[in-house]
């Protein structure tokens, strides 16, 4: 079956847009083909800086014919309806229609056949539509045609199109369509500098080979492989190691059609700048990789360039040019770094009074003061040194005003650590500058040094309480202040460090530093934490419904205890005792719910022992009387496993009760007493969790 080759040749497409554009092209063309009844065998799309290419193979040469049956008006129906029917179906007269009988009478039926079109004609219709409606993030007009508002738009000027369709053994057909005068045919061009001439292509196979010969590697994955392999080899040969950087590799592969990897160096004096600053400088400005010494893991004074040409001098001029630029950039970075070192971090604090954090939450200075106060309160609760914690909180944000962070915002925190160490701060205080931002996401490291932990908690809790106070909670997919991430950070900090913290009271006491955190807020914020915790457990494959069962008890704001209880509960419910007790409790709940509704009353209050008629009732009452306090004592000692063991003792009594006892006894007093006993089961199990929230 025939194949389609489509190439859209343009001026340089931004690297960051290429991968998605290739995928969009594949999706749009194949979706339209399928919608036109043309099922294909396979499709693959590619991008280089100057072209988007799609190959679709195994497309039928034409659409199948489409038979249609259309029901018309009743025989002898109104003339207007008959005329409408003839017009809509294209029949010349009613003689061409069939008559069909159904229970409602005789009706005209038109049988029409829509012949399938040759695929090349279908392509000629759909390709211009796809090109005109292509979803570039930003597009533009160009040239003389742009005088008209109907002008074609593309990401950058579109110069020519290859569109061929045909089978392997024959000369393919050009898909003929008009697109604002852009040439459509079999002509493409090689590398901009190395082989700029026009190339005639027939189909995908010769296209790829001819491009390769014209110094264009079509497949971005292949370009990445070349760059990575050459860069590794080049550095290895000199006893170094490439610092790999997948995001940079993606970008660089989108900037070249013919990757040529070269290595340059810079003056060793720049190695006095922190590695991260060197890397950020070279990466952001020059799109070059940095290189390290495998023995020390420290950067060396080398960098790796990916050029787009095989230079006639073997790359000497390119290396020299890049070295000059990198020297200038590193001089700037060194100057920034050394300038920063001249100012002590704390003397930057007054400037924060001029910087607004959020119009309703005051200045950065106010925020830093709040964090310092809160961190000081949290420190003793988690066992951190209070003096160090407060100092760390005071300094943690100060690097935001340094030159290096101004230039490279991604180095915030890290620079603070370097500057803090340089001015002789305690190591724990310095580390908190970097670590108080952590964890940034579900895979980020959680700090374990308690000073960092205390500041990190204070930072995140201040954010959460603050935005809760001003009613800026996340809604749906909108979370502009990353509050979900902050809450998840708090959870991970607490759980992974085994910290005991009464979240609600810490938050409420902190809320005294701001207005708007009224009575409704603490429960709402806690529910937000509960949701995050559920999500966290779900992601770990744990049972998240148990979180609800524990939070439903109320007063649960010690997250570590919640998690411990959930774990013990999970284990218990995996056992036979647990499963049966859950079933029994649910049965009790169901019966109670029905009877409570029927009688329009609750059955709380202790059952009357005198009204017990059967041994099973008495046994259950005894078991509850025993288990309830035992479980509560265990819970009070935070021995959740013990509490569950106690609960297990309830199971035989509950099972026996449901086996032998009819709850709805004819004697109303007995019935009421038995319902109260059921209610006692529910009450007893609440010592560990609200079983009604547990899913089966």
């Amino acid at each position, binding site marked *: 079956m025939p194949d389609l080759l489509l190439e859209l040749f343009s*001026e*340089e497409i*931004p*690297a*960051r847009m290429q991968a998605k554009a290739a995928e969009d092209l594949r999706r749009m063309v194949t979706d339209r083909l399928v919608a036109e009844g043309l099922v294909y065998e396979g499709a693959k799309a590619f991008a280089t*800086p100057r072209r988007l290419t799609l190959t679709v193979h195994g497309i039928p040469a034409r659409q199948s014919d489409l038979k249609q049956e259309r029901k018309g008006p009743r025989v002898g129906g109104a003339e207007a309806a008959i005329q409408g029917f003839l017009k809509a179906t294209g029949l010349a007269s009613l003689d061409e229609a069939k008559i069909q009988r159904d229970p409602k009478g005789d009706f005209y039926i038109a049988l029409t056949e829509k012949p399938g079109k040759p695929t090349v004609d279908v392509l000629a219709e759909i390709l211009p539509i796809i090109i005109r409606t292509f979803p570039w993030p*930003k*597009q*533009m*007009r*160009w*040239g*003389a*045609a*742009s*005088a*008209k*508002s109907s002008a074609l738009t593309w*990401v*950058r*000027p579109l*110069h020519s199109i290859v569109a061929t369709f045909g089978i392997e053994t024959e000369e393919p057909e050009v898909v003929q369509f008009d697109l604002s005068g852009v040439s459509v045919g079999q002509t493409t061009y090689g590398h901009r*500098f190395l082989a700029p001439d026009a190339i005639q292509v027939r189909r995908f196979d010769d296209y790829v080979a001819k491009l390769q010969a014209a110094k264009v590697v079509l497949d971005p994955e292949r370009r990445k492989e070349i760059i990575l392999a050459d860069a590794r080899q080049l550095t290895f040969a000199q006893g170094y190691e490439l610092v790999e950087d997948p995001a940079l590799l993606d970008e660089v592969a989108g*900037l070249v059609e013919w990757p040529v990897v070269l290595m340059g160096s810079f003056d060793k004096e720049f190695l006095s700048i922190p590695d991260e600053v060197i890397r950020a400088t070279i990466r952001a400005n*020059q*799109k*070059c990789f940095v290189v390290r010494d495998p023995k020390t893991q420290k950067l060396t004074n080398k960098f790796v*360039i990916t*050029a*787009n*040409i095989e*230079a*006639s*001098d073997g790359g000497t*001029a*390119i290396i*020299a*040019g*890049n070295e*000059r*630029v*990198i*020297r*200038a950039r590193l*001089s700037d970075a060194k100057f920034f770094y050394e300038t920063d070192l001249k100012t002590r971090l704390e003397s930057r604090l007054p400037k924060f009074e001029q910087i607004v954090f959020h119009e309703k939450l005051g200045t950065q200075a106010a925020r830093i003061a709040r964090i310092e106060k809160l961190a000081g309160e949290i420190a003793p609760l988690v066992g951190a040194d209070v003096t160090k914690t407060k100092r760390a909180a005071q300094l943690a944000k100060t690097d935001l005003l340094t030159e290096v962070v101004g230039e490279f915002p991604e180095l915030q925190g890290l620079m603070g650590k370097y500057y803090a160490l340089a001015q002789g701060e305690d190591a724990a205080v310095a580390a908190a500058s970097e670590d108080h931002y952590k964890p940034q996401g579900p895979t980020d490291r959680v700090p374990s040094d308690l000073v960092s932990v205390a500041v990190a908690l204070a930072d995140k809790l201040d954010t959460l309480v603050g935005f809760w106070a001003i009613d800026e909670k996340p809604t749906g997919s909108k979370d502009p202040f990353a509050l979900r991430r902050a809450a998840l950070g708090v959870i991970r900090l607490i759980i992974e460090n085994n910290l005991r913290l009464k979240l609600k009271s810490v938050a409420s006491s902190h809320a005294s530093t701001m207005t708007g955190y009224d009575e409704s807020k603490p429960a709402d914020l806690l529910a937000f934490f509960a949701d995050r915790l559920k999500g966290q457990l779900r992601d770990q494959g744990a049972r998240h419904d148990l979180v609800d069962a524990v939070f439903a008890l109320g007063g649960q704001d010690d997250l570590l205890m919640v998690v411990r209880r959930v774990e013990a509960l999970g284990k218990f419910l995996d056992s036979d005792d647990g499963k049966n007790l859950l079933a029994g409790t649910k049965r009790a709940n169901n019966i109670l719910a029905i009877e409570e509704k029927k009688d329009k009353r609750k059955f709380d209050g202790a059952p009357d022992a005198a009204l017990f008629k059967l041994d099973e009732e008495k046994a259950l009452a005894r078991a509850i009387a025993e288990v309830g306090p035992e479980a509560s004592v265990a819970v009070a000692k935070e021995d959740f496993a013990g509490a569950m063991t106690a609960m297990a003792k309830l199971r035989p009594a509950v099972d026996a009760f449901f086996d032998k006892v009819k709850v709805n006894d004819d004697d109303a007093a007995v019935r009421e007493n038995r319902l109260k006993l059921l209610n006692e089961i529910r009450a007893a199990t609440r010592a560990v969790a609200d079983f009604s929230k547990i899913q089966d």
Partner: protein
Amino acid sequence: MDSLPPHMRPERSFQGFILALQRFWAEQGCVILQPYDMEMGAGTFHPATTLRALGPKPWKAAYVQPSRRPKDGRYGENPNRLQHYYQFQVIMKPSPANLQDLYLQSLKAIGIDTALHDVRFVEDDWESPTLGAWGLGWECWCDGMEVSQFTYFQQVAGVECAPVAGELTYGLERLAMYVQGVDRVYDLNFNGRDGADKVTYGDVFLQAEQEYSRHNFEHADTAMLFEQFKMAEAACRKYLDAGWKSDKRDEHLMALPAYDQCIKASHVFNLLDARGVISVTERQSYIMRVRELAKACGEAWVHTEAGSAA
């Protein structure tokens, strides 16, 4: 080019470098203009770009424009940063299909051989909030150094460009430093001569950089500048109002003088900004005020003879 005397070669002299660019673009049919006689932050502000980019009439021009960036002054102590430097500006409307090729040829004309140097077009979308303008294009890199800006104007002064103009901006000092192989802008050979006859960029401009840095950061009279901003803004509005030929507002006779006041206001704002007397919130509002002037000038321009279809 081989017939040029050594001191005129683009890789030997700054002035030879500029002349080579002018000659190249003259060959492409551009009118070679002289710098506009007002202080401005970028060559784009020149009416030959801002205003001529609007309207349907074809236009090709190239010129050097001194660019004043008061905040970038470094008292002559930074090897690359200047508060006054030169841009070379090319504008072609409509953008020719081979504009990228022309640009690459122009690099050849100033001594950059693309068989030897790695020239790249790296995404850079251009936007000027003060001019109400945006376009798509690239930074042009030569061996990892940004040497030019290449933009297809989509909108200028709030008016859609129809047709689109292509704009090239060369950072002259930076490019000349590259082809001359010097690391400090003040070491550029200005006149291409040697020994006692040699004049460097520093000989011409170092004192000016020092003096203007003092002026821009420390002494510029802010009370006067605030007043000047208001006056320029008011004058711009006044000339725009007076320029309409009739109440129908379909023909304008004074767009250029009005636009001069917009340029003036913009530069005065940059000076005030360098003096640090404009707060973050005020800053936005000043930018908006200049943009409103630019947009009103653009609206007037498209009703003038050069800016309209007629």
